[in-house]
């Protein structure tokens, strides 16, 4: 449940940043000005794809899986949780890469990107905590 809620928040953050890149929302509400610097840098794209779009699709996928895994018939199956762990782990690794770019290459911090990094980390931690119930069952068995 926490994963679904956090994914929904992350999805809105990514959607806001992507709408900015599409020119639909004017200047970003940021406070420091670092958001514009980061979002307009060449690092805001990976292989020609907007990072915010990658985030949007990633959070949408996490949200879909998290909601799907809430079905009672799937509650005892570890598959969805493992899939969430893999996706969120990849998201955390990507966020570490992006945050290091902000700190050491771009020299500007985008608060929305930091928010997203915190959200994906929280999702990963929530998934890991949830996955412990399967591990404990294996031990008991």
């Amino acid at each position: 449940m926490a994963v679904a809620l956090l994914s929904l928040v992350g999805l809105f953050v990514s959607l806001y940043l992507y709408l900015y890149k599409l020119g639909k929302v004017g200047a970003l509400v940021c406070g420091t000005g670092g958001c514009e610097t980061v979002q307009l840098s060449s690092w805001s794209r990976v292989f020609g794809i907007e990072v915010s779009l990658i985030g949007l699709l990633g959070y949408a996928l996490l949200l879909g899986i998290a909601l799907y895994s809430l079905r009672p018939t799937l509650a005892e199956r570890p598959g969805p949780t493992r899939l969430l762990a893999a996706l969120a782990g990849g998201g955390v690794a990507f966020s570490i890469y992006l945050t290091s770019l902000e700190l050491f290459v771009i020299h500007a911090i985008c608060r929305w990107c930091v928010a997203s990094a915190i959200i994906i980390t929280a999702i990963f931690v929530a998934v890991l905590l949830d996955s412990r119930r399967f591990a404990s069952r294996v031990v008991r068995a």
Partner: protein
Amino acid sequence: MAAEPGRMKGFYITFAVVAVVGLGAIAWVLSRPSTVEIPVNVTVQPGDTAGFQGYVLGSPDAPVEITEFADYQCPFCQTFATMQMPTIEDRLIKTGRLRFRYRDFPLPMHPHSRLAAHAAACADDQHKYWPMHDRLYQGQGDWSESDDATAIFRGYAKALGLDVAAYDACMTSARYAGRIQASYDLGVRYGVPSTPTMMIGDKLYSGRLDSDAILHLVDSLAPVGAAADSASHSR
């Protein structure tokens, strides 16, 4: 883990609240006019005008130079740019008889003229000043009364093939506010009374100067034959 019904109900309520708040926030930012502010009466720094003498069309060897002080939101400037300028270009600029210099003179009563001037300056960064100049004047009726001129200008930048991210960065930084102010201050010093005003030598010609009048003026100042042979006009 099969969640109890009460817990699921709490989750659904929380989920709905987050969804409504998030969608509301997105709807709010989408509904805001995406404005960029170009400050007025900024203190002009030496770097603002370094190497800049206006936007120039025509050969450096042309015997006559006209400087136009114009405002993108001024209807007479629009008529001049769209109706008279093509003839002037064909008959005077491309033939090497005239060098044309454009200077911004954004009138205080026109809320979008500085923004338009800045959009053109940002297009100049990508060597598209004159296409943007023409597009701004052609579209004046579309943006003049609009609450969202920023987005319209951005659309022009996109349609002209500019790197939109670089254009956005230029616009949000308002880096040419000082340059625009410097051109305006220059016009004030010369005594520009209205727009468009043409300056030839030290004489000012304001009002509805058409291409015929400019042809006659250039003829009187530099009769045919006195023009430079090589015209390096380019847009």
